[in-house]
């Protein structure tokens, strides 16, 4: 379902060239529950940005759901982010002026739907926030905020959920609840990729990919 081949990403900061990715080849099948681990600077964020179509690789190819993404324009990538990918961030990244409901409606609006309210309400119900739909992010707890973010990520039934340190700003109890939500999503068939540096979280994933210096150092799938 996801296939990346020899991905390379080079940034130039002034005259210095930074090789964030040096050639990553990876296959993620539909319905996988996977963690990407690695120390900071290992390239895991860059990998996630490319998988999430926020960034383009310098070299290499990327295929998502049989679609080659290498030569797509900005608008097409925006549409893929909209329809096929759901992001969950460490810092939630909700629009602070908007209510939970409006935050969840956002992808639907950009997708061009006109009746967005019912779908968004239904999704908020699914993540257990039926009673908090008209609250703004600053009126919600950290866990609730992350639930809103997850609802926003899944409202268009994406094929891939990309979560960047989703429990990093939460206490362990709340973190576990959020992880359960990901597990539930995964059971329904959604592919989930979590970037993390917490071993406990990675343990709960069925597959873990370790990155180091822009390369895949170890892949638990290959070992089994």
């Amino acid at each position, binding site marked *: 379902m996801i296939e990346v081949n020899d991905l390379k990403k080079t940034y130039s900061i002034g005259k210095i060239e930074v090789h964030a990715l040096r050639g990553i080849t990876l296959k993620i099948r539909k319905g996988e529950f996977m963690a990407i681990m690695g120390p900071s600077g290992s390239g895991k964020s860059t990998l996630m*940005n490319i998988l*999430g179509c*926020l960034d383009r690789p310098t070299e290499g190819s990327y295929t998502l759901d049989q679609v080659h993404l290498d030569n797509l324009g*900005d*608008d097409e990538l925006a*549409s893929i*982010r909209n329809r096929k990918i759901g992001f969950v961030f460490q810092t939630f990244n*909700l629009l602070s002026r908007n209510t939970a409901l409006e935050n969840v409606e956002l992808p639907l609006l*950009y*997708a061009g739907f006109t009746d967005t309210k019912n779908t968004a309400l239904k999704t908020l119900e699914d993540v257990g926030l039926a009673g908090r739909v008209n609250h703004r992010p600053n009126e919600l707890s950290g866990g609730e905020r992350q639930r809103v973010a997850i609802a926003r990520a899944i409202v268009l039934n994406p094929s891939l959920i990309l979560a960047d340190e989703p429990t990093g700003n939460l206490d362990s109890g709340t973190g576990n609840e959020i992880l359960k939500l990901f597990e539930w999503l995964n059971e329904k068939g959604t592919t989930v990729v979590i970037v993390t540096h917490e071993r406990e979280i990675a343990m709960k994933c069925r597959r873990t990919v370790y990155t180091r210096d822009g390369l895949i150092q170890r892949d638990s799938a290959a070992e089994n």
Partner: protein
Amino acid sequence: MLFWQVIKVALRGIMANKTRSFLTMLGIIIGVGAIIAMLSIGEGAKRQVTQSIQRFGTNLLRVSPGAARIGHVRTGAVETLTRKDTQAIREKIPQIRLVAPSVRNMAQVKYANKNATTSVTGTTPEFTDVNSFPVAAGHFFNKTDVKVMRKVVALGTTVKQELFGEGVAIGKYIKLNGVNFMVIAIMESKGQSSWRDPDNQVFIPVTTSQKRLFKRDSIDAIYVQVESVENINEVKESIERLLRRRHRIPDGVESDFHIRDYTEFVTALREIGQTFTILLGGIAAVSLLVGGIGVMNIMLVSVTERTREIGIRMAVGARRRDILRQFLIEALVMTLLGGITGIAVGGAISYGISYFGKWETVVTPFSIFLAFFFSLLVGVVFGIYPARKASFMDPIEALRYE
């Protein structure tokens, strides 16, 4: 995204910083308000010109001594017209209804212990009809008064007020440069329509003026009322030929007099009014421009502040053009709200000017349309750059922005 949803997002952006948005809009409000007010002053001036045409009548010709000069500027005293010329015009030119000479001098008027300086117009009885300057009380002097050089005077309302206040004037004697004149009539007020107050003058028989008071043979103007406007040019040419012959001016030499019809005068006034309007409108437009720069400034700040929001929107699927549209519409909503408020403010100002300043102002649909259109234009012109800046952001950088 549906249009009203874009508007909703824009309004929310504006409402998030009420004071800042209001101050930004204030620039537009002032600009648009100034345009509306200034154009209403210009338009009012134009209306007044139109009204004065109706008052003068367009079938009026005025023969003045000296060659034609733009804007009534004459150099030196030119004394080429005489009362004989007036008679010749009256006798020899058909198609004219009335002719009246006019001699103007400044004189001291005195009644009891009050005195004033005013303009003394020597003329004939036809004057009131020719210039549509009717008598309010008493009787204007007649042909006999002119013939026997009677010392009678008709007062303009300003002079009457100055000398007599509310008291009775008719039948009283006033002194003009020390000579006794009997007041026989009070003119109706014409109202000040230009830089000169037509009510601040007095009228005496032309003969009295020339022979008894100022000892001057020349006259300052001959007013000719033509029977119908259609043959006004024909009459103008006839008078021109007649006077050139009388003054023995050879062909190819400029006439020592000129004939003006009021349409020409009115055209000149209209042009002045037009220039005036353009000038005022231009100044107002500059303030709108400054307001527009204010909008751009605030939009740039807003884009920077909301970098993260832009990143989030891009991550959930906003295309560049969605972001562009969002910020452009926000700028537009701001300038349009400012524009509409400015139209109301400008309307109120122009009402205030006509109410307190006694200066006629007219707010036309055209000026409202123009102001609205310009505020829209300002929104687009000054909104596009910040909006483009927003839409070209890199989503990763934007999401990382603190």
